[in-house]
């Protein structure tokens, strides 16, 4: 689920119609969730979202697993042909 955007409407019924026009008429959506603004609970505390220490290790992007995979395959005796497809960051 991603935030599609905002609509202004006097009530839920029209909000759904307009959401469909703004975020669904080009076949870009499979489903729409429309909620009134005051139903949104917000979390914006920087200490909770962007802690002061380096937490980059919690992101999968920094790992190079190619060699680990090769070693694991060698141990398991698996064919390495499909190794290229697994190369990368684990995203």
């Amino acid at each position: 689920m991603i935030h599609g955007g905002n609509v202004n409407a006097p009530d839920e019924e029209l909000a759904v119609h307009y959401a469909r026009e703004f975020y669904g008429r080009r076949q870009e959506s499979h489903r729409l969730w429309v909620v009134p603004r005051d139903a949104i609970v917000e979390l914006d505390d920087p200490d909770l979202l962007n802690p002061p220490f380096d937490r980059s290790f919690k992101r999968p992007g920094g790992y190079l697993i190619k060699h680990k995979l090769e070693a694991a395959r060698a141990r398991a005796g698996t064919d390495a042909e499909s190794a290229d497809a697994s190369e990368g960051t684990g995203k």
Partner: protein
Amino acid sequence: MDTTREALAELLLAMADDEFVLGFWDSEWTGIAPMLEEDVAMSSVSQDEIGHAKAWYELLAGLTDDDADEIAFGREPAGYRHAALMNHARTDWAFTVARRFLYEHADATRLESLARSSYTPIAELAAKMRREETYHLLHFDLWLRRLADAGGEARDRLAAALERIWPDAQAVFAPLDGEARLVSAGILPDDLETLRHRWLDRVVPILEGLRLPVPPEAERAAPPAGDGRTRRNDDFAWLHGEFTMVARSDEGATW
């Protein structure tokens, strides 16, 4: 001469012109609808109608070995076959809502029947269009209810518009020359008078529920006049000049 073919062409032209002319009228709301969101919605719905017109014109063009653009833009005003309901200018928002409400239900009634047509290309197109028209119905039912419930000027204008266009709305079901042939071939599964009554059974209870004007029983019982798809007015003559302007500016151009 293949007269069933001619009757089929007559039916396709009538439906295509309904969607085409209404699509053009209501596209005039782009930029000036009651609010920004409705501006986008109305423009989008109008585009849908032009798209449906295109589909009918292309089916017709394949049948008559003609060109869809030429059929759409190459005729004089007298050659168009839309129902008299579509003659009128956009007018105000209440008029637009009144017309759309009556038309969307008429179109839905027609498509529901045509989805069972023995002529497969029509049945398939009708089934696809019905899926898009569901939203049109919801949208204009909603607006009708809102303007009626709002009272005051909104309600007065809506009621006046309905009074004015009832006779022309019935013309959506005006008899076609080749109708009997289409019905006996199963191309048109129900005759237009049956469809008109089915349409009345849909719209009259909604209007009565909102205490909006409906024509007297006697008027509803009488079939629409035979000129329902041929009578024209100055509004349409003007619109025709507008929507053919670009095509006429460079005839035969590839766009």
